[in-house]
C-alpha cells in the first residue's frame, strides 16, 4: 500500500457522506432540534464568557489573574476529559473495530495503520472539547479586543493540547489490553468514567457554589480561590496552554509554553507509535481471544421470580431482562449516575432557604411544590427515555427468539413495562415525597404531589414503552444511541408537553383550595365543580397517555416486518 495514512480514513468519510445523503424519517426534526440546541448552547457559552471577560476588564490585575486562573482550570478539566475519552476511544479504534481484521490482513504498513487510528482517536476524544472551546476562546478574544494573532495562537495551542492527552490515553489503553481482555477493559473504563462523573457531580454540588453570591461569606471566597489555585501547576500541558493563550490575548507570542506544547505532543506521538509498533499486534491478538467471562450468577433471582403469579413466558422474560441488564456494565452503571442525580435533587431542596423572605415564604413554598412536581416528572421522563424507551430495541438482533415463540406481543410489551415501571415509580415517589417534606409544604400538597407523580409516572413510563416499540432500533450499538434517536427525541418532546399540561391542570385547583383555606373562605359550588373537572381531566390525560401509548406500541410490534 503506497497511499498515505489518510487513505485509511476514507471509509469513515464515505460512510458519513452516504449517511448524509440517505435521509431517514425524522432526520429533519432531529437535525433541527440538536442543531438548535447546539447553537443555543454555543451562543449561551459565548454570551456568558463574553460578559464575564468584559466585567473582569474593570478589575485590571485581579481581572488578569482570574482570566489566567480560569484558563488554567478550563484546560486542566479538558486535559483529564480528553485523556479519559481517549482511553475509551483507543479501545474501540485500535482493538474492537470490526474493520481491523480486514486492515490487519491487508498489506498496510503498521505505522500507517497507527497514524490513521491515532487520528481517529484524537478526533473522537477531542471534538467535544474543541466545540466547547470555540465559543469560549472567541468570546474571550473579542471581549478583550485581542489582536488577530491570538486566533492563530489559539489554533496552534489547541491542536497539540488535544494530542497530548490522546497519546497518553492511547498508551494506557495499550497497557490495559495487554493485561485484561479488551471487552473487560472496556467495562472497567466505562465504570471508572461513570464513577468519575458521579464524583464530579456530587463534588460540584456539595461545595455549594451558591455561597459565593452571599456577601456574608466573603472570607470564604478568598479560601475558595486559594483552593482553586492549588492544582494549577506549571508542569502540566493545561498550564502551558493557558499561559500561551493569555500571552496571545495581550499581543505576545509565548514561545516557551507553545514550544513545550508542540514538542511534548510530537514526542509523545513518536513514543506512542514506538510502543504500538512493538506491542500492538500482541495486544490485538490477545483482544481477539474468546475467554470465559466472569459474571454475576444472580442465583436467587429465579427462585424469587418463580414465586410470582405470572405465566411461564412472563417469568422467563422478566428473568432474562433483569439478568441482561445487571450483567451489562454499560447499562447497570448508569444507575450510579441516576443515584447521584437523585441525591443532588433532594439535596437542592435541603439547602433551599425560602425562609429568607418570611412574608412570601408560604406562597413560594406552595409554588415550589408544583415546580417540584414538574421537575420530578421531568426526571422521571429522563430516566424513562434512558431505561424504558430502549427496552424493546435492547432485544437487538436476538428479537427473533421472542417473535418466533408462542408469545403475544402484548405480553412481551407489558412485561417490559412492569420491569421498568416498578423501580422508576419508587424513585419518582422517593424524590417527590422527600423534597416536599424538606420544603415543608402543607399536607394537602404532599398528598396531591404523591398521588400526581404516581399517575404521571404511569403515563410517562407507558409513553416511553409504547413509543420505544413504535420506533425500535434493533441495530443500535448501545442504548444511548436508542435514547438519542428520532423516537427518543419525539418522546421527550411529548413528555414535556404532557408534564406542562398536567402540572397546570393540577396547580389551578390546588391553588384555589389553598387560597380559600388561607382566607378561611368557603369555595363556591360552581368553582368546586371546575376544580373537580380540572383534576378529572388531569387524571384522564394520564390514563389516556398510558393506555393509547401501550396500545399503539403493541400494534406496532404486531405489524413489525
Amino acid at each position, binding site marked *: 500500500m503506497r497511499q498515505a495514512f489518510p487513505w485509511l480514513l476514507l471509509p469513515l468519510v464515505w460512510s458519513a457522506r452516504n449517511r448524509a445523503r440517505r435521509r431517514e424519517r425524522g432526520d429533519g426534526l432531529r437535525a433541527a432540534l440538536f442543531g438548535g440546541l447546539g447553537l443555543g448552547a454555543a451562543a449561551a457559552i459565548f454570551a456568558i464568557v463574553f460578559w464575564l471577560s468584559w466585567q473582569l476588564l474593570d478589575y485590571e490585575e485581579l481581572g488578569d489573574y482570574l482570566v489566567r486562573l480560569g484558563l488554567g482550570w478550563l484546560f486542566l478539566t479538558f486535559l483529564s476529559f480528553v485523556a479519559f475519552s481517549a482511553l475509551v476511544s483507543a479501545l474501540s479504534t485500535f482493538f474492537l473495530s470490526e474493520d481491523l481484521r480486514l486492515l490487519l490482513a491487508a498489506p498496510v504498513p503498521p505505522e500507517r495503520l497507527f497514524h490513521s487510528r491515532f487520528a481517529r482517536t484524537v478526533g473522537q476524544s477531542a471534538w467535544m472539547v474543541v466545540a466547547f472551546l470555540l465559543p469560549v476562546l472567541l468570546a474571550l478574544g473579542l471581549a478583550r479586543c485581542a489582536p488577530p494573532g491570538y486566533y492563530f495562537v489559539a489554533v496552534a495551542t489547541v491542536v497539540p493540547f488535544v494530542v497530548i492527552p490522546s497519546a497518553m490515553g492511547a498508551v494506557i489503553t495499550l497497557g490495559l489490553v495487554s493485561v485484561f481482555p479488551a*471487552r473487560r477493559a472496556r467495562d472497567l473504563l466505562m465504570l471508572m468514567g461513570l464513577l468519575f462523573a458521579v464524583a464530579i457531580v456530587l463534588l460540584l454540588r456539595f461545595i455549594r457554589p451558591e455561597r459565593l453570591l452571599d456577601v456574608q461569606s466573603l472570607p470564604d471566597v478568598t479560601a475558595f480561590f486559594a483552593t482553586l489555585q492549588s492544582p494549577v501547576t506549571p508542569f502540566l500541558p493545561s498550564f502551558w496552554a493557558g499561559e500561551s493563550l493569555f500571552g496571545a490575548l495581550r499581543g505576545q507570542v509565548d514561545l516557551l509554553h507553545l514550544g513545550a506544547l508542540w514538542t511534548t505532543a510530537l514526542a509523545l506521538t513518536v513514543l506512542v507509535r514506538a510502543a504500538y509498533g512493538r506491542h500492538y499486534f500482541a495486544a490485538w491478538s490477545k483482544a481477539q481471544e*474468546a*475467554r*470465559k*467471562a466472569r*459474571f454475576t450468577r444472580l442465583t436467587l433471582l*429465579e427462585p424469587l421470580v*418463580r414465586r410470582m403469579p405470572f*405465566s*411461564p*413466558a412472563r*417469568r*422467563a*422474560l422478566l*428473568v*432474562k431482562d433483569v*439478568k*441482561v441488564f445487571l*450483567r*451489562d456494565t454499560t447499562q447497570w452503571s448508569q444507575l450510579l449516575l441516576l443515584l447521584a442525580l437523585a441525591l443532588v435533587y433532594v439535596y437542592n431542596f435541603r439547602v433551599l432557604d425560602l425562609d429568607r423572605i418570611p412574608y412570601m415564604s408560604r406562597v413560594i413554598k406552595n409554588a415550589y411544590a408544583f415546580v417540584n412536581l414538574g421537575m420530578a416528572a421531568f426526571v422521571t421522563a429522563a430516566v424513562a427515555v434512558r431505561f424504558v424507551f430502549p427496552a424493546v430495541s435492547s432485544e*437487538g*438482533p*436476538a428479537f*427473533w*427468539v*421472542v*417473535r*418466533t*415463540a*408462542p*408469545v*403475544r406481543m402484548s405480553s412481551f410489551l407489558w412485561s417490559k413495562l412492569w420491569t421498568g415501571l416498578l423501580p422508576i415509580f419508587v424513585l419518582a415517589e422517593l424524590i417527590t415525597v422527600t423534597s416536599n417534606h424538606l420544603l415543608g409544604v402543607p399536607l394537602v400538597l404532599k398528598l396531591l404531589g404523591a398521588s400526581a407523580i404516581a399517575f404521571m409516572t404511569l403515563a410517562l413510563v407507558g409513553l416511553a414503552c409504547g413509543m420505544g416499540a413504535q420506533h425500535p432500533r434493533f441495530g443500535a450499538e448501545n442504548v444511548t444511541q436508542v435514547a438519542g434517536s428520532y423516537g427518543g427525541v419525539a418522546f421527550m418532546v411529548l413528555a414535556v408537553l404532557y408534564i406542562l399540561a398536567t402540572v397546570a391542570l393540577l396547580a389551578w385547583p390546588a391553588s384555589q383550595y389553598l387560597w380559600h383555606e388561607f382566607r378561611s373562605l368557603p369555595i363556591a359550588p360552581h368553582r368546586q365543580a371546575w376544580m373537580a373537572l380540572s383534576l378529572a381531566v388531569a387524571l384522564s390525560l394520564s390514563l389516556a397517555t398510558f393506555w393509547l401509548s401501550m396500545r399503539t406500541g403493541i400494534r406496532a410490534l404486531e*405489524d*413489525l*416486518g
Partner: protein
Amino acid sequence: MILVLNLAKTFGSFRAVDGVSLDVAPGEIHGFLGPNGAGKTTTIRMIAGLLKPTAGRVSIDGHDLAREPEAAKRALGFIPDRPYLYEKLTAAEFLRFHGGLYGMEGEAAEARAGELLELFELVGWKDELVESFSHGMKQRLVMCAAFLHRPRAVLVDEPMVGLDPRGARLIKEIFRVMSRRGVAILMSTHTLEVAEEMCDRISIILGGRIIARGTVPELHALAGTDDPQLTPVFLKLTGGGAYQEIEL
C-alpha cells in the same frame, strides 16, 4: 404439516416473493433451494412469523399463522441462518428462557435442556455466557432451543453454516431421526449435496416463484440432464449454467 398458499411479499415496488405455495407432510424433509436473492429467506421468515406477508396464508399443524399465531408457533421450531442470541445469558439460562416462552418450566424442562446440551456437545459450556461462544457453538445452541419443545414442524435456514463436519453429520442424523418420528422439516440450503442426500422433495425458487418441485429423479427428468449430481440440474433450472472463465 407446513402448508403455504400463494404467499407473497412486496417491499415497496419490489416483489420478493410472488405466490409461493408449499406443502410439507409429516415426516418429510423438504429442501428449499434457489440462488441468492431468489426469495428463500423472505419465505422462511414469513413462515416463521418474522415477516408479515403481503398476501397468502401459512398454516402450521392445522393452525393459521395469522389467526392463531401462538398455536402455530408452538408447533414450530425455527433455526435461523445467523445465530443471534442474548449474549449476556449462559447457555443453560438461554434454554431455560426459551423453554419458558413455550410454557416449559421445572424439572422436566431442565432435564430436556440437559439432554439437548449433551447431544450438541455443549454441556461443558452450559454455565458460560453466550458472548464467549464461537459461531458454530451458537448455531448448536440455537438448534438445542429449536428442538427443546419437541416441535411437530421444523424450519431451517441454512443449517450447515458455521458447523464443522462433525456438527454437520450430527445435525443430518438428528433431522433423519426427527423425520422418522413424523416431524416435518422445511430446509433452505445452498449446499446441494445436503439437499440431495437428505431431502424427500425439493422446491426450487427463482425470482420469488417456485419454478420446479419434485424428488431428485423428478428434477433430473425436468432439467433433462444425465449428470448424476444435483448441481447441473440446479444451474440449468435457475439459468446459471453459463459461466465466464475466471482468470486467477
